[in-house]
């Protein structure tokens, strides 16, 4: 595929007019605010907002010395690790099963694609209802098995709740990509191994799983990005960062400190750290995953 057209149109003004809407929105709502965040992260404003002072990297120093921020960082890492590992394992299991199914494959797929259409915040509400300590069905079942459930008090249970909701929401996506990966593995390879006497488990671990590794790696990055940035709705609706600050992931903390705490410099510094994380993840994706599409 060519990266450039051989034949093009000529007009001194039309192309500018065509890109103008996208550029105006990009400049006003993306670049200007991002610049503001960068600039504010270097300022300190007094309590009344009357004077500001340029402090270089003082906000960042404060941030990384703040136990609350470091703990939020830890929670985010644990949360995204769990979401990625559990989500990928479950989806891979289902995809491997669906790949070899003869009857009802379409029905299974259609039913598994469903959660993709559900909003993260709504997904959180559904699971919140099941795990509600007083009236939730699952909480009730756990109680009767001798496992008292109260995510409003127990930090680990609260984390479990948001991990379940986040994984549930992401299963469809992982499942579809794994299925695509599985179906792209040449049949002849699997058949050759089968003829050589390799059983299903052996075939999976020595052939299928290694051949799937590009898909797995791609999904791993996507799931980490998802857990970092797209789970705000889940956290806000399910736990609001509680109990205490046990489920306060980084994107939730930016919001709480900025909008509720009104700590402009600190919140801006957090934004800048998040930006750095996005840039790093984007770089990983471009460097290691996508080489075919030309930019």
């Amino acid at each position, binding site marked *: 595929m060519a990266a450039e057209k051989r034949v093009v*149109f000529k007009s001194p003004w039309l192309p500018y007019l065509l890109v103008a809407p996208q550029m105006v*929105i*990009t400049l006003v*709502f993306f670049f200007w605010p991002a610049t503001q965040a960068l600039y504010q992260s270097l300022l300190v404003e007094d309590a009344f907002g009357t004077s500001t002072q340029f402090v270089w990297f003082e906000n960042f120093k404060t941030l990384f010395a703040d136990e609350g921020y470091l703990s939020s960082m830890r929670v985010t890492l644990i949360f995204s690790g769990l979401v990625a590992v559990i989500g990928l394992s479950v989806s891979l299991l289902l995809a491997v099963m669906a790949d070899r199914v003869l009857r009802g494959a379409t029905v299974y797929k259609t039913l598994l694609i469903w959660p993709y259409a*559900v909003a993260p*915040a709504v997904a959180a509400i559904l699971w919140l*209802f099941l795990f509600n300590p007083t009236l939730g069905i699952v909480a009730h079942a756990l109680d009767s098995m001798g496992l008292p459930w109260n995510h409003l008090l127990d930090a680990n249970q609260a984390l479990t709740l948001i991990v379940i909701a986040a994984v549930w929401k992401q299963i469809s996506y992982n499942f579809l990509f794994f299925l695509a990966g599985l179906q792209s593995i040449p049949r002849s390879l699997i058949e050759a191994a089968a003829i050589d006497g390799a059983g299903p488990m052996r075939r999976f671990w020595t052939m299928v799983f290694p051949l799937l590794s590009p898909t797995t790696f791609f999904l791993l990055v996507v799931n980490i990005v998802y857990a970092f940035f797209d789970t705000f709705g889940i956290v806000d609706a399910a736990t609001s960062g509680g109990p205490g600050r046990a489920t306060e992931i980084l994107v939730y903390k930016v919001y709480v400190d900025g909008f509720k705490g009104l700590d402009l410099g600190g919140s801006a510094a957090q934004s800048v750290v998040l930006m750095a994380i996005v840039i790093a993840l984007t770089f990983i994706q471009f460097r290691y*995953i996508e080489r075919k599409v030309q930019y």
Partner: protein
Amino acid sequence: MSPHEEIAPIQPKSERRAGAALMTLGNVLPRSWRTRGGREGMVENRPVLSVLRHLILIVGIAIVMFPIYVTFVASSLTAEQVLESPMQLYPGGRLIENYLTVLTQGSGMGSSAPVGQMMINSLVTALIISCGKIAISILSAFAIVYFRFPMRMLFFWMIFVTLMLPVEVRILPTYKVVSDLGMVNTYAGLTVPLIASATATFLFRQFFLTIPDELVEAARIDGAGPMRFFWDVVVPLSRTNIAALFVILFIFGWNQYLWPLLITTDESMYTTVIGIKRMITGGDAATEWHLVMATAMLAMLPPALVVLLMQKWFVKGLVDTEK
């Protein structure tokens, strides 16, 4: 073509992942649609294994569907029935009453806005976002592919960089811009800041590059200008891409949470997803769960319907882009 060639460049946001899904799904759905029954071949086909496979899939799907089923059941019960512990697991008789109540009056607790209004707000928001993104992206991709002009690459990279600036990392300053422009509690405020789309622009660009140059030459010979070419050739050829993008972007727009949470302080501007959250803020005693669950069903319905109703177009778009 291997599916990995099709995997989208970059995915750090749901919309972006969605774009990737589009590009890669081309290899997922159609092939599996077609190969039903063709996958066994020479590999052993033990009935025990086959039963096990179905069993695992059925258990998996049961777990995935369970929350939705319970939500549906709860939305058909009375307030008292929901509070019984454990709640019954078969539908009750209050289905229509509950839905009518939320649609016209909302939940009396927490937020009193009728969900009917919220559904309209969500619909308008999702439509403006999806159509807006498609419109401005197809125009900028057209300019970047079919013209040579100074600063072309600068524009291209500026669009690219927006991938690295999800709303979560610039919320305060973006909110400030929107409030300075007086766009709080307006549809414009809810949608315009989300309309720039690098993913859609790249998708269109990739597709335009595959349109044969002969078509441009033919158009020129016929004396057609660029906009004529755009409307008569580019847009019709992009139909399936547009339809497939629409499905994904509609879901993206409908499911927005953080941004409407900041921008809508007036109940009459709440979207459905925000409305549900506001209904449960009062704590257990003050939450009318049967109504919250009815609202949750309503919030899930339109994106699910769009996927369902547009499935054919969606799959066709994916088949066509499979190349």
